[in-house]
C-alpha cells in the first residue's frame, strides 16, 4: 500500500510541477548569486550539487538549504520514467509521447554525464614552438620532474585532491618520499615574515618566501593561488622542507643521488600523444576599436604515433576536432602577437544534446501531425 502510494507520487503531475518550480527557483537564484560569488562557484553550488548549501551565520558550518540541480534533475528524470510506466496504455498509442520523453531523459542524463566526464583546459601556442600539453585553469598538481635523461623527462604528479589530504606519497621512480605538511587552497605571498605569514621553509627557491592562507577566489577572471609545504623523506630521514606555490615563477632544482629533479606546484597538465605547432596567428579587430573581428590560427598537427604531419586552420566558431577533443580559438596575448590561446574541451557526452533535440523534435512532430490528422478527419465528418 505504502509502496504503491510512493510509486503513484513519483509519477504524478504534481511532482512534475514541484520539480519545474524548484528548477525555476534554482536558475533564478543561481543566476543572481553569480554577481556575488562568480560563475564557477555558482555553477558548483547551485547546479552541480545535490543540495544548495549556505553558511550558518557566525560559523564556517555549511548547511543544505534547498535541493540542488542534480537532485531536482534526478527526481525529474524519475518522475518522467514513472509517469510513462503509469500511463503506458496512453503512451503505447502515441510513439510521439515516448520519443519526447526519451529525448528529455537523454538530455538530463547527457548533462549529468558532461558534468562528470568533461575536462576543460587551455593550450597556449607560441609561433614556431610545438606544444604537447594543455593546462587546467582551476586545479593544480605538485610536479616532481626528473630531468636527468637527455631525451625526455619523467614526471611524478600529485593532484590537488591528494595534496589537500596531507598524506605521504612514494613511487618507485622517486628516491625519496613526499610528505605534505600543509596545503593552502588559496594563498597570498607575505614579504615580511612578521606580517602574519603561515609558512616559512628551510630549502629551495622559496627559502625566505612566506605565504598566508586566504579564502577561495570566486571572481571569474581570477583563480586560486595554492601553496603547499612539503617535506622530502630519504632513507636517512627528513631531507628538509620546501614550499611549492603557484605564486613562484621558478621551478626549484633538487640534486639527489646524482639525479636532477625540478619541483613545482603548477596547473594540472594534460599531455597529448601529439603536438600542435602554431605556424601563423592572425588577429583582426574592427577598425578604430578593440573589438575582435577574426582570430585565425594556422596550426600544424605533429603526431609521431600516426606519422601525421598536416596543417589545419582553427577560427572563431570553426574549431578543430581531434583525438576526442575540441580545440576552440579562445584568445590571444595582448602583449605578444605571436601567441594564440586555445580552449581544449574533452567531452565524451557531446553528442547527447543533438540526439535529445532530434528525439524531442520527432516526438513533437508526431504528436502534432497525429492530432492534426484526427482533427481533419473529424472536420470532414
Amino acid at each position, binding site marked *: 500500500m505504502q509502496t504503491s502510494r510512493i510509486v503513484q507520487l513519483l509519477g504524478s503531475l504534481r511532482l512534475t510541477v514541484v520539480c519545474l518550480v524548484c528548477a525555476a527557483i534554482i536558475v533564478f537564484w543561481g543566476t543572481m548569486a553569480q554577481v556575488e560569488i562568480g560563475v564557477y562557484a555558482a555553477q558548483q553550488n547551485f547546479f552541480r550539487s545535490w543540495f544548495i548549501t549556505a553558511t550558518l551565520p557566525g560559523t564556517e558550518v555549511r548547511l543544505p538549504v534547498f535541493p540542488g540541480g542534480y537532485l531536482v534533475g534526478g527526481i525529474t528524470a524519475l518522475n518522467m520514467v514513472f509517469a510513462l510506466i503509469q500511463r503506458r496504455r496512453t503512451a503505447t498509442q502515441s510513439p510521439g509521447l515516448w520519443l519526447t520523453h526519451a529525448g528529455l531523459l537523454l538530455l538530463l542524463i547527457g548533462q549529468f554525464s558532461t558534468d562528470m566526464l568533461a*575536462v576543460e583546459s*587551455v*593550450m*597556449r601556442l607560441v609561433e614556431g*614552438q*610545438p606544444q*604537447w*600539453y594543455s*593546462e587546467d*585553469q582551476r*586545479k593544480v598538481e605538485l610536479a616532481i*620532474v626528473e630531468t636527468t635523461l637527455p*631525451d*625526455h*623527462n*619523467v*614526471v*611524478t*604528479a*600529485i*593532484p590537488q*585532491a*591528494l595534496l589537500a589530504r596531507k598524506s605521504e*606519497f612514494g*613511487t618507485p*621512480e622517486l628516491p625519496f618520499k613526499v610528505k605534505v605538511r600543509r596545503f593552502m587552497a588559496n594563498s*597570498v*605571498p607575505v*614579504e*615580511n615574515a612578521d*606580517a602574519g605569514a603561515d609558512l616559512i621553509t628551510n630549502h*629551495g*627557491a*622559496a*627559502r*625566505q*618566501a612566506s605565504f598566508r592562507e586566504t579564502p577561495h577566489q570566486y571572481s571569474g577572471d*581570477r*583563480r586560486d*593561488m595554492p601553496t603547499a609545504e612539503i617535506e622530502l623523506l630519504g632513507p636517512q630521514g627528513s631531507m628538509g622542507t620546501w614550499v611549492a606555490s*603557484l*605564486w*613562484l*615563477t*621558478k*621551478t626549484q632544482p633538487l640534486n639527489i643521488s646524482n639525479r636532477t629533479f*625540478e619541483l613545482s606546484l*603548477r*596547473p*594540472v*597538465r*594534460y*599531455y*597529448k*600523444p601529439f*603536438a600542435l605547432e602554431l605556424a601563423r596567428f592572425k588577429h583582426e579587430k574592427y577598425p578604430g576599436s578593440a573589438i575582435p573581428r577574426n582570430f585565425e590560427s594556422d596550426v600544424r598537427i605533429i603526431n609521431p604515433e600516426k606519422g601525421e604531419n598536416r596543417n589545419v586552420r582553427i577560427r572563431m566558431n570553426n574549431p578543430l576536432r581531434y583525438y576526442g577533443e575540441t580545440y576552440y580559438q579562445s584568445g590571444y*596575448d595582448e*602583449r*605578444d602577437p605571436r601567441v594564440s*590561446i586555445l580552449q581544449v574541451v574533452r567531452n565524451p557526452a557531446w553528442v547527447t544534446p543533438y540526439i535529445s533535440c532530434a528525439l524531442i523534435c520527432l516526438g513533437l512532430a508526431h504528436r502534432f501531425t497525429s492530432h492534426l490528422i484526427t482533427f481533419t478527419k473529424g472536420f470532414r465528418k
Partner: protein
Amino acid sequence: MLTACDQQQVRTYRAPKDPMPPADESGAPRRAPIVWKEPPEWQPIPPGPMRAASFVVNGPDNQRAEISVVPLAGQAGSDLDNFNRWRAQLGLPPGEPAELERSVQQIEIGGQQGKLIEIAAAPSDQKSKSRMIVAMVQRNGITWFFKMMGDDAVVTAQKQAFMDFLGSVQYAD
C-alpha cells in the same frame, strides 16, 4: 605517454622536454629575462628567492630604504588587494577604492604600460614616518613589482633615482 587525467591518483609518466621555460596557469613563460641600471649609491644585497634583486640605500641618522624587484605569476592579486597589503606593511588600515584611484599614476616600464603607487604613513609619534613607492607591470603572464620602502626622508630623496631605475628597465625577449 600517459594522457589519462585521474585526479585521485599519483601519476607517473614520461613527457617531452619543455621547448621553453615552464609555463604558468595561462601558459606564459615563467622566466622573463630583464635588465636594468641601478644607481651607484644603491648597494646590492642577497635577494630572497622570491626576489629578482634587492638593494639598500642609506641616509643620515641610520635611516635607510630598501628596493626590491619581485616577479609573481599571473595577475598577482587585484590592485586593491595589493594596495591594502602595502598599506598594512606601513601599519595603515585598509584603504577604499577611491583612495587607490587617487594614488595610482600610469608609468611605462620596459615598453609596457604599468602603474605607480605612492603611500606614506605618519605615525602619531612623528619619529618614524615611512614611505613606499611601488611600480608594477605585467608581461608574459608575470607581474613584476618594483618597490622602494623605508624612512620617509630617504625614499623621498631617492625618488628620482628610483624613477630613473624604472626607466632603465628592459626586457630581453
